């Protein structure tokens, strides 16, 4: 849905007063004319709409060409934007000339489309000028005949030719109304289709997971590439997950985000995840997506999303744990975090996840844009913050970073949709060649 559809729908309100004033103008003029001379009034009231409707027959053709023109203009603009956005890579391979040439080709196509639309529009404009002048002239000649033969006075003649000139505008407005309405209607349809669409997330039916310390248990789960996955995360555990194929890691993340359409058991504290009240489920099990989304504001507002505001100490603590303290808590964050580097964005998102203190936290490749030394610090930070003597949180990290895996209590390896190996990082890297290669180093 285009974001302008709501605007187009609301334009109906804008059209109503115009239609009313056009109707009023037509009625007043019509009455005047009919009082002066019934035949003249009738000629005008019948002939003007006929002419406008005839001219309107060309409207779809023109609209078509204008749409093509706007489409081409849009293509040109997005090409220019695209090329300038990719300026650095372009410059890196000395491709500025090739890019400028590509822009020129599209610009010429756009020019051709503009000229084609201009031809249609101006031909219409010319025809419309000619027909409306002929119509007003024809009525003037008829009225002149009536005046010369003494059926109306000179003053009435002037009134008639004035009205003939005037009436074209309100009639013109009325003639376009169906098209306005159709456009608004189409937009309204698209808006309605969004409003009527189903919700993505299951609502849950209020099942309450048992206990104070929650565990996550997957038994024989089949979902996309996952073919019989068993995974049990006990309270307080720090589990590293290595998925040899990225699609399997993504499936696991997706399943835990939107538990829908899977086979097998997926239990949070003993209750099927989709039956737990949605808000509560998301509080208990937090899934931090790999693609980081930051929002306009400050670093603090991005990390402390619920504005708990409980002390700078806690904020500073999670920033330190996520190695994001260098950014500075007061730093402004631009739209989508555009003013931070990829690594900074990742660390801020990690700090945010840590700040939320969910009993169960799933992180998906949280340190891909972070150098190895910092990765090491982050692994220690997560351990200290979530797995201290009395913290008792559970953390699952899907990653291939040796630093994180080495810090985890145990590592679970997923291959071909199921768990194929399990053990401590050191032990796995000592005995498993595939594992050693998969974690890169």
């Amino acid at each position, binding site marked *: 849905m285009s*974001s302008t559809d709501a605007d187009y729908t609301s334009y109906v309100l804008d059209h109503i007063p115009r239609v009313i004033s056009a109707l009023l103008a037509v009625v007043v003029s019509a009455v005047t004319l009919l009082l002066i001379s019934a035949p003249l009034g009738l000629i005008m009231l019948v002939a003007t709409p006929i002419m406008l409707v005839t001219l309107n027959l060309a409207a779809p053709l023109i609209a078509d060409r204008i749409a093509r023109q706007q489409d081409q203009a849009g293509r040109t603009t997005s090409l*220019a*934007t*695209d090329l*300038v*956005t990719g*300026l*650095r*890579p*372009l*410059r*890196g*391979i*000395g*491709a*500025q000339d090739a*890019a*400028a040439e*590509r*822009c*020129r080709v599209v610009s010429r196509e*756009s*020019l051709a489309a503009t000229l084609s639309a*201009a031809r249609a529009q*101006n*031909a219409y404009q*010319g*025809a419309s*000028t*000619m027909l409306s*002048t*002929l119509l*007003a*002239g024809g009525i*003037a*000649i008829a009225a*002149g005949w009536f005046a*010369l*033969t003494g059926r109306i006075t*000179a003053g009435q003649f002037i009134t008639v*030719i004035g009205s003939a*000139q005037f009436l074209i*505008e309100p009639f013109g407005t009325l003639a376009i109304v169906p098209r306005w309405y159709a456009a608004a209607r189409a937009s309204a349809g698209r808006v309605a289709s969004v409003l009527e669409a189903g919700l993505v997330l299951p609502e849950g039916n209020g099942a309450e997971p048992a206990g104070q310390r929650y565990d996550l248990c997957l038994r024989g789960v089949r979902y996309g590439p996952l073919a019989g996955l068993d995974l049990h995360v006990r309270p307080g555990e720090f589990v590293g997950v290595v998925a040899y194929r*990225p699609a399997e*890691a993504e499936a696991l993340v997706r399943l835990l985000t939107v538990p829908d359409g899977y086979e097998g058991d997926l239990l949070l504290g003993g209750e099927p995840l989709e039956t737990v009240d949605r808000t509560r489920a*998301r509080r208990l099990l937090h899934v931090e997506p790999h693609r980081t*989304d930051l*929002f*306009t504001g400050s670093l603090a507002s991005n990390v402390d*999303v619920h504005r708990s505001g409980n002390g700078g100490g806690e904020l500073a603590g999670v920033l330190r744990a996520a190695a994001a303290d260098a950014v500075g808590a007061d730093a402004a964050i631009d739209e*989508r975090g555009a003013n931070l580097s990829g690594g900074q964005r990742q660390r801020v998102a990690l700090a*945010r996840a840590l700040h939320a203190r969910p009993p169960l936290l799933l992180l998906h490749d949280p340190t891909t844009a972070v150098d190895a*030394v910092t990765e*090491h610090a982050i692994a220690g930070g997560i351990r200290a913050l979530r797995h201290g003597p009395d913290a008792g949180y559970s953390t699952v990290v899907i990653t291939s970073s*040796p630093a994180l895996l*080495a810090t985890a209590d145990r590592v679970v390896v997923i291959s071909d949709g199921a768990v194929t190996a399990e053990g401590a*990082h050191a032990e796995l890297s000592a005995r498993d060649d595939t594992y050693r290669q998969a*974690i*890169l*180093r």
Partner: protein
Amino acid sequence: MTDELLPVASPRASRAWLGTALRARKVQAVLTLSAGVLAATASTVPAYALGLLVDRIRAGGDTGAIVPVAVVLVVAAVAGGVATAIGGYLISRLGSQVLADLRERTVATALRLPARVLDRAGRGDLLSRVSADISAIDRAVSDVLPGMISAILLAGISLAAMIGIDWRLGLAGAVAVPIYAFGLRWYLPRAAPSYAAERVAIAERSQVFVESMQGTRTVHAYRLEDRHLAGIEGLSARARDISIGVFALYTRFVWRINRAELAGLGSVLVVGFLLVRKEVVSVGEVSAAALLFHRLFNPVALLMVTFDKVQDAGASLARLVGVLDMAVERRDGSTPPAGRELVLEDVSFSYDGVTPVLDRVSLRVAPGEVVALVGSTGAGKTTAASLAAGILRPGSGHATVGGVPVAELPADTVAIVSQETHVFTGPLAEDLRLARPRASDDEVTAALARVGALDWVRELPAGIDTVVGSGGHQLTAAHAQQLALARVVLLDPPVVVLDEATAEAGSAGARDLEQAAAAALAGRTALVVAHRLTQAASADRVIVMEHGRVVESGPHAALIAEGGRYARFWAAWSAPNRR
């Protein structure tokens, strides 16, 4: 970083540019103007003829008097219609041809701006110029300009015709001119900030909306739906209130236009009445003047309400002409290098002229050698890489390939792949062809195969013809980086600089990327900025930088044995592995 904006042309410079553009199309411009004048004249003739008819009627003439008037009306209608069509088309054509030239030249200039100019000005400004400003002019040229020019011509010719009937009638009509002008003077200073505020409010609304939609997973994960909805709602309400205010302003302006119309037509009728009573002019002539004046209502009102759009277009033009006049950097030197050795000799560089980023750095990459640059953040690795690739120019010292300064080399001698990847929108093959426009499908396929990308490319919906980039098939960061390497293979330069080319790839793709990079570098002289030390370990030689200087240089094993800085890096980096 964005304190230094790109230049904006002075009004005089913009006018001069426009004058030059029009003079280049002198014949076309004259034809356009003639057609416009003809159309305007033809549309004033009927009112004149009808005025004559009024006098005949009052004189009690016979019915035959109607025939010449009828003939004139028909001829004027046909001539007016044809001239309107041709004139309108010619105006559109002239405008859009000038625009197309402007558009192409602006983009071509933008693409050749020196890297440092762009870094200082920020890319946002340039992007808004090549998109928003060009669109503003485009809209003005296709929607506003033809109507505006014909309205001006019509108003001029109608007033002249009224003066031709009697100068006092012309003067009476001209009463409206200052009222229109005052209306415009009242409106424009209010309109510009109101519309700007409306645009800002709408942009903020869509920014928050788009941000929330794109970050929808995060919004869900943190249960922030209510917060974000409230934000969107608040900004929507603000945009709505501002829009209503803007509309109120607009209706008040229309009321001022109506006042001018009333005053003008009223004074034409009153003056006409007085003149008729003195028997200076006939009733028919006054009728003609009134009809002429009344005909102007719509065109002039259109002129008034679109005036600010033309002003906007003028401002946009100044911003584009400002770009056109900037100094560009051409890299089409034709001195072929005598060899493939990359040398930085005593190179110093500073971004701000005060703090040196590189301090007399000398390094040498032998033909076919792969050298890795290692160092902590801020050591100057990226700057050294940019200098080697000719993206930056050394403050002092020399950067050469085969003895020729990098800036004077043909563009396809040194390629750099930076961390900033971009997938160009369009078919994937066209993305690669930016490196070599005339590459055949087979060559494109071969380049993809070389960097190990062919497998996943084949799995795309339409193979190498799949539309990728924004709005097309989304590629992962690792795949985008592989495309960047494939472009290098297609370009086939003797020297390649890789700057952190695998750092952002994500763990899953990093290994593929390192293999792809190795394949792309095979047989070339290469300088690789390495963040993952595996890249350094597999290079022929490692150069360690610290605070803008080279501190160590040698093969991986030798540096480890030396136990210096590099050895410490390596130990810290590989520590988690050995626990």
